[in-house]
């Protein structure tokens, strides 16, 4: 083999490796975007943006969207969508607050809230699987039902209660517990993300979910219990929305039935920026978390730079569309 040939075959081998890395790591793009945007704002306002406090604040602000995005990732990889996330988060805060007001302890309140959210997810899944209505419509309906339930349960008012320590989940870490670095709620979210990532990537049920989203007919042909799996996916997503609601309550320390309106769109945006596709089969937990962080970084960064709220919104929208455009180009290039 001549040197030229060997160098060419080396370069094709390098290309193949790079390609394998890109295909095998769909979260790489979102991570790069996240770092780029972070560096941009760090360069623009190094005095305030780079502070440790700012970093912790941004992570704390991302947690609710992040946990919900983990659930949404599973749903969207399976080929569905869940619009009821925001309502379910609000309902969870209300359930916790209402239970504690009627004398429940924090453990009972949060167990009840998680149960309610899991059941709500189960209902979503059962409707999608049994009635064969598109998930968009089903969850559009349950979005309204859950919002109404939350308002009814709270008599259309915020419920103010003593959080009985649940607020500590998201509070800044006190000095004597400095080794924790981040609030326990953040660690919880990270643990959930790690579990979900392993589940989706390395467990057969996770692979079945990917297959179902990629081509439901093939999945069925190969003996994947498509209906049951659909129910399970929405139930898990509901449970994770409940967990997001718990963290939201911890931040707010009130049960607010009008909280998190439109949260589902932010969550979907995070998943989509993270490489998820509305047509299923694609997406990763890590990517969605990076997507969620990216949204927060843009918001915070714009505030630091002094840009108005409306500029942030325009910027966020542009980034979503650009991210999609890049993804299309990448797919076509393959």
């Amino acid at each position: 083999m001549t040197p030229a040939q060997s160098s060419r075959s080396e370069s094709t081998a390098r290309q193949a490796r790079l390609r394998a890395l890109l295909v095998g790591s769909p979260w790489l793009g979102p991570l790069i975007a996240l770092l780029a945007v972070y560096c941009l704002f760090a360069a623009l306002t190094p005095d305030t943006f780079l502070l440790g406090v700012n970093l912790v604040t941004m992570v704390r602000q991302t947690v609710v969207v992040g946990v919900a995005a983990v659930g949404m990732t599973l749903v969207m990889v399976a080929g569905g969508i869940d619009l009821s996330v925001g309502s379910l988060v609000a309902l969870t805060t209300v359930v916790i607050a209402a239970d504690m007001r009627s004398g429940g302890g924090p453990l009972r309140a949060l167990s009840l809230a998680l149960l309610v959210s899991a059941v709500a997810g189960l209902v979503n899944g059962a409707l999608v699987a049994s009635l064969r209505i598109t998930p968009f419509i089903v969850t559009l309906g349950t979005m309204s039902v859950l919002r109404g339930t939350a308002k009814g349960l709270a008599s259309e008012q915020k419920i103010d209660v003593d959080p009985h320590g649940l607020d500590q989940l998201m509070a800044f870490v006190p000095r004597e517990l400095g080794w924790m670095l981040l609030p326990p709620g953040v660690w919880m979210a990270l643990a959930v993300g790690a579990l979900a990532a392993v589940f989706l990537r390395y467990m057969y049920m996770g692979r079945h979910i990917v297959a179902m989203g990629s081509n439901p007919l093939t999945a069925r042909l190969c003996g994947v219990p498509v209906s049951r799996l659909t129910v399970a996916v929405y139930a898990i997503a509901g449970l994770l929305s409940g967990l997001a609601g718990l963290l939201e309550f911890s931040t707010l320390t009130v049960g607010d039935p009008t909280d998190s309106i439109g949260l589902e769109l932010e969550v979907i945006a995070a998943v989509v920026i993270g490489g998820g596709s509305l047509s299923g089969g694609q997406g990763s937990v890590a990517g969605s978390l990076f997507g969620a962080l990216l949204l927060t970084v843009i918001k915070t960064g714009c505030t630091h730079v002094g840009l108005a709220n409306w500029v942030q919104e325009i910027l966020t929208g542009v980034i979503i569309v650009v991210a999609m455009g890049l993804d299309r180009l990448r797919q076509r290039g393959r």
Partner: protein
Amino acid sequence: MMTPMTERVRLQVRGVKKAFGPTAALRGIELDVRAGEVHAILGENGAGKSTLNKILAGALTPDAGTVLLDGEPFHPSDPHQAHRSGVAIVYQEPALCPHLTVAENVLLGAEPARWGFVRGAVARRKVEQALSEVVGSELVLPNEPLWNLSLGERQLVAIARALAQTDCRVLILDEPTSSLTAEHVERLFTVVRRLKQRGLAILYVSHFLEEVQAIADSYTVLRDGENVGSGVMAETNASELVGLMAGRRIELLFHRSPRTPGDLMLEVKDLAGEHKPVEASLELYSGEVLGVAGLVGSGRTELVRAIFGLDLIRSGKIRVGVFAGPASPMRRWAQGVGVLSEDRKGEGLAESLTLAENITLSKLRGLGPIGFVWPHRQMRAAQTWVERFGIVCRSVWQRAEELSGGNQQKLALARLLYHDVDVFLLDEPTRGIDVASRAQVYQHIDELASRGKAVLMVSSYLPELLGVCDRIAVMRRGRLGRARPVSELDEHAVLMEATQG
């Protein structure tokens, strides 16, 4: 001749050729159809009938050759233009809008309008005229939404549409009766005869010989993209037509290892599906290949799907070894039955997933502890079969969509072998793949049978059924005939059974 046949040749096709990549679909077709004549186009699956239709309807452009319509060159660039020139095609399942009414469908795209408003009175008159010409005294209400209509009625609406919109000169009916009941077939024939009186040239494409003999005045037989015979229908008979359709073919080499039929692996009794099959019974033994022949749309695929639990069944019994109970794909895999879908891209493979995932999807358990799937074990499992099947790829982590058709088919087949099933349900295992891959698939099937596996194989390609199978049963209009040893059969006999009954 009992029909008023004018001597004018309405449609002339001269030396039309069409190739798709390396495969020639039409190799120089000649055709003459007169006004007021029903001309049957006959041929086996894949003989080139559809391609010819599509060219006449403007959906495809020929590579070479000319078409003359009433002596004028006719080379439509798209279906719309063909339609406007007076050549209309009605497909087996007409492309109409189910949410619109009959009248709206009839006029869609050619509504008489002024300033953007449909001129109600004119529209109504046009629709009524067209409908009365087509359906005669029978009533199809113009304001009925189309979804209320049966398939047969929809076809009539499609014909009415062809008549209402243009000065229709040539009407192509593509397999018009394959999904119709006998009563609807009769009604369609009445309509066709009426249109013939009006001087239309009608191209009638069908597999069903008895039907063609009843309605057509003349015929052209296609085989492998060439016309191999044409003439007046009254001067020929079914046997002669089948002979022309089948012809003599280049002998394919089929390897046959010694096979010893053993236990009864699959028993189907009086099976009826939602629509098809109407009635099917079969017995499949280990160590044999049982072929299911029949025309496209006769219900062979539905039979396979019903056995595998992919389609609901209305009645009948299916027994796999010792298992009777209800069927679902999950249960069938667990019972040692695997299926190869005829629709490789739509159903057989998840094209956006990797080769490794596609091969192992039906059995991910066992590739790691308690519910885990270790990628390296998945890779090793897939690698084995990729090598054994000689699937050409860069790596098993490549997406399935990047493979060629032949390699995709081998990939889909590899799944069944990875799963290690005992009963193979193969629906069109060689569809759309090259000759070399075909030969490999035949070899794999032969090896399976000689190793004592049971294989049920559906195919539209008769030589391969005769070459590979031990017994063949013929499906006709949803009914499966008795399976007979290949030694008692030849292409002619199978075709007769499939087209005649």
